[in-house]
């Protein structure tokens, strides 16, 4: 079963605007990760946030985690055409073994020039 659910499923914005996508989950987690997948390519790790962290930054990426609401958001500031991709969240549940990540179905982001 899918624990992580991304919202929205698709997002189209103008270049230069900020893009926000959300991930909700159902059970307690150890950490949550965001990945990017360009069309026809493998997934690439973007950022990991642990359950005791509330916010992390990496370049133009800002990730927040609200464990009380069981949700996370990924903000991409000053979007560029190269940010066009699908974005996935993956959760490491507290109950699971090290290998197990639960993947969402992804948000497809399109940046219009």
């Amino acid at each position, binding site marked *: 079963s899918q624990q992580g659910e991304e919202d929205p499923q698709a997002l189209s914005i103008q270049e230069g605007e900020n893009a926000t996508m959300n991930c909700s989950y159902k059970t307690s987690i150890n950490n949550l990760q965001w990945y990017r997948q360009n069309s026809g390519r493998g*997934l690439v790790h973007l950022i990991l946030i642990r359950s005791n962290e509330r916010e992390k930054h990496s370049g133009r990426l800002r990730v927040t985690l609200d464990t009380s609401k069981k949700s996370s958001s990924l903000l991409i500031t000053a979007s560029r055409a190269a940010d066009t991709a699908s974005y996935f969240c*993956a959760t490491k549940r507290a109950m699971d073994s090290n290998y197990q990540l639960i*993947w969402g179905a992804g948000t497809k982001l399109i940046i219009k020039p």
Partner: protein
Amino acid sequence: DAGITQSPRHKVTETGTPVTLRCHQTENHRYMYWYRQDPGHGLRLIHYSYGVKDTDKGEVSDGYSVSRSKTEDFLLTLESATSSQTSVYFCAISDPGQPSSGNTIYFGEGSWLTVV
């Protein structure tokens, strides 16, 4: 990019034929995974390995088998391919023993399999 090579990258095969996908890593990571990715389903784990000759089933393992005879190689076999196994297959690796990036998964570029 993580040193993960998948082969073949694209394959068309007929229903009922056996197919083997290969994954080779140069990172010496302990864990290796095979996922499939289908529209509307996201990533689903087929099998994983936590060491040489140590493998276990994921959530969609029926119709698939795996083998890991060396740390660097992980093979996925479809014993008798069916049309429902048409998908994109991703190999991935991780090293849970690393405190800084243990849960990070590194993906290969994918293998597109079409079963006709």
